[in-house]
């Protein structure tokens, strides 16, 4: 069946992962990186953009090759594609954003093992045409990215009083200069990322309903 570029089905591919099928809050994938690099918005943004790039390219490439890849070695092929893309991203970051790359250190390399990417390659790109795979990749990567940015927003704002490195709370508020305010150190520690993600999941589930219940109904 021929469908238009932005048919209802294709739009759903793009919009579902942003909310109802969000890779982090619903499928609970890619949590490690969400905990590790959300201390500052800048890191989270670079990470999110890297993942968008790697995921879109990998999904498109695997989808293009899907009829050629022997199914016995498909994981190896996927890994080769993803890791070459990741090395490419890493090199670009080293060249143009060396300080961010230094902070992200191993986590750029660990995109290779990000379960969201492997999951989409296995579950979607291997069985779908180029255009839907492209949309699916964009949807999932942005679904991952916006959670990352949301978590980083709260962690950076409350943990260091900054956004993208710029001071938000005026200096006069701080105790050192006569105010009362103190930054929340717990926000900088990894457990708080887990709690912030948990709160986002809580809000989402109380607004919609539990995905487990939806599964039972279907």
């Amino acid at each position, binding site marked *: 069946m021929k469908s238009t570029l932005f048919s209802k089905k294709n739009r759903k591919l793009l919009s579902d992962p942003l909310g109802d099928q969000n890779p982090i809050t619903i499928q609970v994938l890619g949590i490690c990186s969400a905990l590790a690099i959300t201390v500052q918005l800048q890191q989270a943004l670079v990470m999110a953009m890297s993942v968008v790039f790697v995921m879109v390219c990998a999904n498109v490439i695997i989808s293009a090759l899907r009829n050629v890849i022997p199914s016995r070695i498909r994981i190896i092929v996927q890994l080769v594609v993803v890791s070459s893309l990741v090395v490419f991203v890493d090199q670009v970051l080293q060249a143009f954003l060396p300080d961010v790359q230094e902070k992200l250190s191993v986590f750029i390399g660990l995109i290779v093992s990000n379960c969201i990417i492997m999951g989409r390659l296995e579950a979607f790109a291997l069985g779908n045409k180029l255009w839907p795979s492209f949309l699916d990749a964009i949807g999932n990567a942005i679904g991952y990215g916006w959670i990352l940015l949301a978590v980083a927003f709260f962690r950076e704002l409350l943990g260091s009083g900054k956004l993208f490195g710029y001071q938000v709370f005026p200096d006069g508020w701080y105790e050192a200069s006569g105010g*009362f305010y103190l930054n929340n*150190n717990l926000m900088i520690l990894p457990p708080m990322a887990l709690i912030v993600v*948990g709160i986002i999941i809580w809000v989402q589930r109380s607004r919609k309903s539990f995905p487990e219940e939806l599964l039972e109904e279907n």
Partner: protein
Amino acid sequence: MSFLRNTLNKIKPHFLKGGKLEKLYPAYDAFETFLFVPNHTTITKCHVRDSIDLKRTMGTVILALIPCLIFGCYNIGYQYYSQFDPSFITQNFNGFFNLFLYGLMKVFPMIVVSYGVGLSIEFAFAVFRKHPVNEGYLVTGMLIPLIFPIDCPLWIVALSVVFAVIIGKEVFGGTGMNILNPALLARGFAFFAYPTKLSGDKVWVSQGSTDTISGETALGELATLVKDNVSEAHVNDVLSNFGSDGSYSLLNSFLGFIPGSIGETSVVAVLIGAGILLLTGLGSWRIMFSALIGGFFMASIFKFWGANPFMELNPIHQLCIGGFMFAIVFMATDPVSAAQTNTGKLVYGFLCGFLGIMIRVFNPAYPEGIMLAILFMNVMAPLIDHYVVQASIKRRMNRINI
């Protein structure tokens, strides 16, 4: 009395079904049952019931906390005036009253903030989730001020309460469902989020108008002994404080005339509270007893090992300083987050005490380890219960097979 009853009766229709304030019924219900014994009748099959309900349980625990609170207030005044103007302390009755009032003025705002913030969240959740307000917060609200340092800013107290009630309790479904002890969670939150306000030598003694008063807790003082490059003179200096004439002597630590969190310093006051809990059967003697044994056991091992001056402290003295006694009597015995089986309680209590002393001595960055030990054991409690139940089943199965 009849005035209250009449007022309640008059406003009741507004809260019933169809009334203007129907949504706020849980809030009304909470006030009514708080003021008067509810005339609810049993509607399910089980008719034999203990007359004690959650409100009275909580009331008794608060009663058990009163000695700690009173002594805490007095000690705050004592610590302040002993640096600021020692002549106050020597006046007999008048002196006592001055010290107590000074402390009360400092502690009262914390209690108000703790109850105000905590109960409003409880009410909000009760209204939103349409269930009656639970009384679980009554004890937590009293415990939280007692385990904070006196100079902790009120907004930090409020924020910790918010965190403890929402993340510690409401996300799990409210009173009786929490995994961790909410009061300890509040302190844990504040401890990690605002370390400068929860540790160090500036926060334990009320600052008053001047900013020069400092007082280290006994544990903070001891923790300086295990750092690298400690001079011999410093070690002797600190240890002399723990001698029979020093400010942290065994007697002072036992009576509670040492800097520390508001309610934790006096072992005597804690023991009175423990007596009330044990007499009324609300606190588990198994947990208190085994935690004491666990702490003593670990302290004795350290004494025997003696790798540094901190370890060489007399085990009894070790148990009397810091919040150890307060925590094992009021926190470890929390019936919700502790182990439920009798054998489990013994294991749970023992490990609380054991780990508490271990963390305290091994990690000078966490001067009071009992908080982390109890939080950790709260998480482990279901596991302990599981194995106790499994062992019991196995034993009985063996009996059948013979």
